[in-house]
């Protein structure tokens, strides 16, 4: 099938752009998973809210490059603000309670958010176009390729590096890492763990929403969009290792290539492939590719 190297090249590009699209969506999930140890069912709902907010902003600003930028940032800001209220007002009461309660909480959140979205924006489908300067295709020498897909290929690493820089090179990042390693110790040292937790939840939610806005030009904005994407995001975070940014990045690459190449060679059976991969990786490395084999290991 790949007698033609140009087609192979395009399929590799397709894999990469899908991988980066998925990574952008999964980044926030990894962050919350890693630090708060919360399986955030509501991640998909946050992602959906982001796309809808961007849609509304674009309606006001009109279809322009600046409008798109405002849409993405606005989605992150608004979702972040809502997440702050939810975290401070409700979720924070559950930190010292049974761990699984937080799961129940995010499940309830999904129901509420999805219905509110339906009330505000209705049940129809909408579409957000790529910003004007990213429409159409660009010639890569071997073949033309959609500009927006290339843009996602660039955005993925940028977001990854930005989070990495924040985590590894800033004071806040150090506190976050400490929170991940040992909450009690952090508390004893006097750092306000509450603030750290708020910050992580807000950042994770904002990332999800920006992911929704960024993914919108390659998808539809509709009430089912969250459920389609949440499983992929979970697979990435799980195979990459809980809370490992690098793991999620690699996990996204694996899933991206598996989805694209799998759909060529395995055809429809690719549906099983991602779960087989997940099982195999977890059997060999239960804590994920880049996760730390911490005290919860066997």
């Amino acid at each position, binding site marked *: 099938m790949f007698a*033609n190297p140009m*087609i192979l090249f*395009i*399929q590799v590009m*397709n894999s990469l*752009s*899908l991988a980066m*699209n998925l990574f952008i969506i999964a980044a926030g999930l990894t962050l919350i998973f890693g630090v708060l140890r919360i399986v955030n069912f509501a991640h998909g709902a946050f992602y959906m809210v982001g796309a809808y907010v961007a849609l509304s902003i674009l309606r006001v600003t009109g279809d322009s490059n600046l409008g798109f930028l405002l849409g993405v940032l606005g989605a992150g800001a608004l979702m972040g603000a809502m997440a702050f209220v939810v975290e401070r007002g409700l979720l924070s009461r559950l930190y010292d309670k049974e761990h699984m309660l937080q799961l129940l909480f995010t499940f309830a959140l999904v129901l509420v958010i*999805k*219905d509110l979205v*339906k009330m505000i924006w209705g*049940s*129809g*489908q*909408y*579409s957000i*176009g790529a910003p004007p300067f990213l*429409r*159409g*295709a660009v010639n890569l020498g071997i073949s*033309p390729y*959609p*500009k*927006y*897909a290339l843009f996602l290929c660039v955005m993925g690493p940028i977001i990854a590096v930005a989070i990495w820089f924040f985590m590894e090179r800033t004071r806040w990042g150090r506190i976050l890492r400490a929170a991940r390693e040992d909450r009690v110790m952090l508390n004893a040292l006097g750092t306000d763990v509450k603030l750290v937790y708020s910050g992580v939840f807000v950042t994770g939610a904002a990332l999800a929403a920006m992911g929704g806005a960024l993914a919108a*030009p*390659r*998808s*539809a*904005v*509709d*009430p*089912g*969009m969250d*459920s*389609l*994407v949440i499983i*992929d995001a979970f697979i990435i975070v799980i195979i990459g290792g809980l809370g490992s940014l690098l793991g999620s990045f690699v996990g996204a690459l694996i899933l991206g290539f598996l*989805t*694209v*190449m799998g*759909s*060529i060679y395995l*055809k*429809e059976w*690719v*549906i099983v492939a991602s779960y087989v991969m997940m099982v195999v990786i977890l059997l060999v490395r239960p804590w994920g590719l880049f996760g730390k084999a911490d005290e919860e290991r066997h």
Partner: protein
Amino acid sequence: MTYRKAMKSCALALGTAVLATAAMAQDGPIKVGVILPMSGGGAYVGEGIYAGVDLAVKQVNEAGGVLGRPLQVLLRDEQLRPDVSTAAMRELITLEGVQHFIGPATSATSLANSQIAREEKVVNISPSAKTEALTAGDNLHDYIFQLAPTTDVDGVRTVEVLRGMGTESICFTGFDYAYTHDWFAAIRANMGDITEAGEFLVPMNATDFSATITQLLSSDCDTIVGTQYGGSFIAFVKQATPFGLFESKKVLWGSNTGDHAVAAALGAELPGGLWASAADVWYYEGEDSHAAYQQALAAHQGRKETDMWPITGYNAVKFLTAAIEAAGTTEPTAVAAALDGLTIQTPLGEITIDPETNRANSPEFYGRFEPQEGSDVARMTDLRLVR
């Protein structure tokens, strides 16, 4: 409808309305169970069908109801889950005593509910499911009626359109599920000398189509036939457009993507030249009855540019009321018998339910999307109402 005829039916309606009031007090309303997807990704279908049901019920009730009794709709959310849709149906039967059902919307949920209809002996009109299986072989029974054209019918009609497009070879693409397989099989059975250059399916709920798009581009076909629906169709279009897929190939899409809602969602992003089908389009100007219906629907929904789904619910109610009227009773076995071979006037002309197959000969529109002067939203041109 002529003026005299209209006056006559008005007078008749008034008369029955007067008579009805007394009867109503004794019998109460006729309950109609309506089971549709009202949440999640399928909600736009459910809300559309429900709008048509609601409009028809309003019209029927304003005209004095059926057998002097008004219709009362009991709506349930099927959530696109057969276990939920069957549970809802049984709840309506056992708790509310409902004997007449419209819905569910999709093939999987319709198949499941039809089994309950058979067992409980209640009338079940399926407004939108296209699967052959619903009324074929062992699944066919006296109480299930399928209004939407099935995939076999679609196959014949599609090949006609393909010939008109000058198609010589096809590539197939779409979700890996029953509708796709059935429709493609029907096209293959009818396409004669048109050749097939490949089939590229993706799993249900896939969100990325770039691999398939690349395969389609490099395939040796002049026309692409696809089945992604709703939001997934929008995603396909947005991913395929920058690749230039719609410039290098002719495209015909199933899943009723000729729906105005799809065009409205995509706006200027909808590729010109796309062939599609729809159960209804608001801008069709063929029949007076259609104009009257669209006017009523526009008033009901508060917008002129309505979607295609309402007509399916509208016709379902009209069939049900006509059958109850003809049977002279709401007793389900009699109503089901009355539906056999019943012909009614619909906004799109006469439609008959075949007494053998329990399928209606509903027409559908086929056309080619082209951008409109002075509007962002494309419309189908070369519009034909295929019967």
